[in-house]
C-alpha cells in the first residue's frame, strides 16, 4: 500500500466520533463572521449596521485575487461591525448578525436531490466557485479558485483529493464520505473539469475501510476517478506528502508549489462545497465540525452554520467536562489551543477537541540528547533541532539557508521528541520571521 517516503509519525488515532452520524446543529442567537477566515487579503464588508440579510446573502466581498467572499449563514439583522477574539487569540474585525428566523435566499436549491449534469465551461465553474467564497476546507483555507487558475507556464495533470484525515480525533471528512459519497464524486468531477484534467485521485487512509469500500463502489460510475487507499501515517494529509504518496512525485522547495509537478490538491470537504456551490447555488456558509475528546459525553459530528460560537457545539456534545485541560480548535497535532470558547466557527474549523487535564499537560522540557528522532520524523527532510536552535538565537540568515520556510508545521518533531522540547514553537516563529524577511527583500 502507498504512503509518502520521508519521515512521518504514528500518533494514537482516537477517532472517537467515527460512528456518530452527522447531526444538524441549531441556529445560534448571534452569528459572528471574522473578515479574515482565509489565507490572503481580508474580506471587505458589503453590509452595514441595521441591514437585513438572509441565509446565503453575501456580507463581505473578496479583498483581492487571493481572498474569498463571506456569506451569511443566518437570516437576521446586522448588529455591528466590530472586533472579535478569533482562534489566534487576538481581536480581529468581524461582522455580527443577530439571528431572526431562518429565511434562505431563493436562488439556493435546498432539495436533497443529486444533480449530476453540468454543462458549464471550466471558466464558468471557477467563476461560480469564486463567487461562492469556497476555500480549502482542510484548515489552511486557501481560496479554491486560486488553486484552479494555474500560473502561466504550469499545467495541471491531475486532481488529488485529500480524504486522508490524518489528524487524530477528527472524523468530519470520514462521516462526509459515508453520508455524501455521490455529491463528493460529482464535486471531484467538477474540479477535474475546472482544472481541465481527466484524472482524479481520492487518497483515503486505510483506517477508514468503510469509506474506501463505499467510495470505490460509487466511483465506478465516474470515469477518471480512482480511489487510492493509503497506509496510515501522519502527516499524510499534508499537500506535498499526499502528492508523494499518490503519484510518487516530490514537490521541490519553495517557491515551487504543487502545480509545478502537475498536481492540484483539494480537500474532500472542498469537493463537497464545490458541488453545493456549482450545482445547488449554495455559497459556503456551513460545514461539518467534529466535537470530540476523551472526556466528552457525546463525541459528535455537527453540520454547523458558520459564525456559531464553539461553546454552542460543546454544549450540544454534552457540555464542557470537568477535567478539561485545553480546548483546541482543530486536531491535536496542528490545532491551536483556544483562549476563549466563544470563538466563532470559521471556514477552516474542522474540529473542536477537548483534552483532559492529564492529556493536555506538556512534559517538562529537558536538554536535547542528540537522538535525531526529530530528523527521522520530519516529513520534509529538515533538521528540526537545528532550525529551532537557530530561531532561538535569531540566526535568521542561517535558518533561511537551512530551508526553514519548507517546514509544513505538522508537529511531528515535537511529537517525537523524548525531551519534550518546544521544537515547533520555535520553528514557527523562525519561519514567520524568515518569510517576513524574504517578503521585504522581494518588495524592494
Amino acid at each position, binding site marked *: 500500500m502507498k504512503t509518502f517516503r520521508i519521515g512521518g509519525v504514528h500518533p494514537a488515532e482516537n477517532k472517537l466520533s467515527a460512528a456518530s452520524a452527522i447531526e444538524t446543529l441549531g441556529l445560534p442567537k448571534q452569528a459572528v463572521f471574522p473578515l479574515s477566515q482565509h489565507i490572503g487579503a481580508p474580506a471587505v464588508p458589503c453590509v452595514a449596521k441595521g441591514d437585513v440579510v438572509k441565509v446565503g446573502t453575501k456580507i463581505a466581498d473578496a479583498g483581492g485575487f487571493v481572498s474569498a467572499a463571506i456569506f451569511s449563514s443566518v437570516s437576521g439583522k446586522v448588529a455591528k461591525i466590530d472586533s472579535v477574539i478569533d482562534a*489566534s487569540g487576538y481581536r480581529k474585525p468581524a461582522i455580527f448578525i443577530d439571528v431572526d428566523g431562518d429565511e434562505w435566499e431563493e436562488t439556493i436549491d435546498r432539495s436533497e436531490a443529486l444533480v449530476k449534469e453540468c454543462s458549464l465551461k471550466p471558466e464558468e465553474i471557477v467563476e461560480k466557485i469564486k463567487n461562492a467564497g469556497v476555500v480549502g476546507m482542510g484548515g489552511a483555507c486557501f481560496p479554491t479558485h486560486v488553486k484552479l487558475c494555474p500560473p502561466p507556464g504550469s499545467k495541471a495533470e491531475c486532481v488529488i483529493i485529500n480524504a486522508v484525515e490524518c489528524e487524530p480525533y477528527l472524523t468530519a471528512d470520514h462521516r462526509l464520505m459515508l453520508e455524501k459519497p455521490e455529491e463528493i464524486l460529482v464535486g471531484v468531477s467538477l474540479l477535474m473539469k475546472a482544472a481541465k484534467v481527466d484524472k482524479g485521485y481520492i487518497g483515503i487512509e486505510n483506517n477508514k475501510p468503510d469509506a474506501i469500500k463505499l467510495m470505490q463502489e460509487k466511483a465506478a460510475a465516474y470515469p477518471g476517478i480512482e480511489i487510492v487507499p493509503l497506509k496510515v501515517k501522519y502527516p499524510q494529509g499534508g499537500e506535498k506528502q499526499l502528492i508523494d504518496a499518490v503519484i510518487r512525485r516530490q514537490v521541490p522547495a519553495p517557491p515551487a508549489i504543487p502545480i509545478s509537478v502537475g498536481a492540484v490538491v483539494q480537500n474532500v470537504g472542498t469537493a463537497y462545497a464545490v458541488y453545493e456551490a456549482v450545482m445547488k447555488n449554495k455559497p459556503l456558509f456551513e460545514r461539518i465540525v467534529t466535537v470530540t475528546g476523551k472526556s466528552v459525553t457525546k463525541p459528535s459530528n455537527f453540520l454547523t452554520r458558520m459564525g456559531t460560537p464553539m461553546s454552542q457545539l460543546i454544549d450540544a456534545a454534552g457540555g464542557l467536562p470537568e477535567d478539561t485541560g485545553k480546548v483546541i480548535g482543530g486536531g491535536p497535532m496542528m490545532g491551536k489551543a483556544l*483562549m476563549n470558547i466563544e470563538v466563532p466557527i470559521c471556514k477552516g474549523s474542522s474540529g473542536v477537541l477537548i483534552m483532559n487535564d492529564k492529556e493536555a499537560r506538556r512534559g517538562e522540557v529537558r536538554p536535547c540528547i542528540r537522538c535525531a528522532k526529530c530528523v527521522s520524523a520530519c516529513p520534509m527532510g529538515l533538521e528540526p533541532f537545528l532550525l529551532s536552535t537557530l530561531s532561538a538565537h535569531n540566526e535568521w540568515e542561517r535558518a533561511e539557508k537551512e530551508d526553514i520556510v519548507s517546514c509544513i508545521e505538522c508537529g511531528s518533531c515535537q511529537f517525537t521528541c523524548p525531551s519534550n522540547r518546544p521544537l515547533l514553537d520555535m520553528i514557527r516563529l523562525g519561519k*514567520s520571521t524568515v518569510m517576513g524577511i524574504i517578503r521585504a527583500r522581494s518588495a524592494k
Partner: protein
Amino acid sequence: MDLILVAVISLGAIGLIAAVILYVASKKFAVYEDPRIAQVAEVLPQANCGGCGFPGCSGFAEACVKAGSLEGKLCPAGGQAAMEKIAAILGLQAEASEPKVAVVRCNGSCENRPRIVKYDGAQSCKVAHATCGGETACAFGCLGCGDCVKACRFDAIHMNPETGLPEVDEEKCTACGACVKACPRVIIEIRPKGKNNRRVYVSCVNKDKGPVAMKACKVSCIACGKCVKECSFEAITVENNLAYIDPNKCRLCRKCEAVCPKNAIVAVNFPPRKPKVEAPAAEAAKAETPKVEAPKAE
C-alpha cells in the same frame, strides 16, 4: 657528529630564510591602524552590548576615530564619563547627553490584570506573542516570560514574582536598548532619566478601545483624554486609543497623574505629595467618578 651538524645547519638556514620572508612581508603588507582606536577601545566598558548601534566596543571605537566628530555618538553603557574620556583622547567635543533608562510600560500585575488562561508553551515571549494573545484579556501587555531579562547584559532587569512583571534596576541599567529589541510587544521604552531620576509616564500600551481595555485590566489607559486636557505643556497626545507623554516636553508637574481615572499614569521617585495638595486631588477624585463611564461612548 656529522649528522647533528647537518641538522643544525639546515634548520638554522630554514629559520633564517623564514625570518627574512616574514620581515619583508610584515613591512610590505603592513596595515596602518590608528593607535587611537586602541586607546578609545580601552576606555569603553567592553560590554559589547551593541547599544551604541555599532558592532561591539571596537566597532564603536573605530567609528569614533574615523568620523572625526562625536556628533550623535553615545556609549550608553559608559555614559557621559566614557564620552568625555574619548573626547579627551581624540581632542574633540563630546555631545552633551541626557542619561536614559529603560521603562517598563505595563502595570498589569496579577492583581491588576486577572489571568484568564494558562499558557504552557515554550517559555519565550516571542513564541507566546506569536501563538496566543497571552494569559490575560489584554493583547498588548507584558507576557511575563522574561525575554527582556535574558537579553540584558548588565543584570539590570528582573522579573518580580509577585507582580509577574519585569523591574528595571535604575543603578545598573545603561539604556543600551537590548530589552526594547527583545520585547515582542514593544512595552519597554528608553526614556530620559529625568531630573533627580523623576519621571512621569503612561504605564500602559493597550491600543484597544476604552471598554475593552477597561475590562482587561484595572490600570489600563482608556484614552479618555483627561490628561491631555490637564497638561499645560502639550506634552501628552492620544493616538490609537493610547496616551503618550513626551518626555522632552513633560515638566514633571504630576497633574496628569492626579486626574487619570485608571491610575495608568505613573510618577516615580517623587516625594509623597504634600498634604495641602490633597484638596485639589480630592476634587479630581470626585470629578473622575462620573467620567469613568464617559469613554464608553464611541
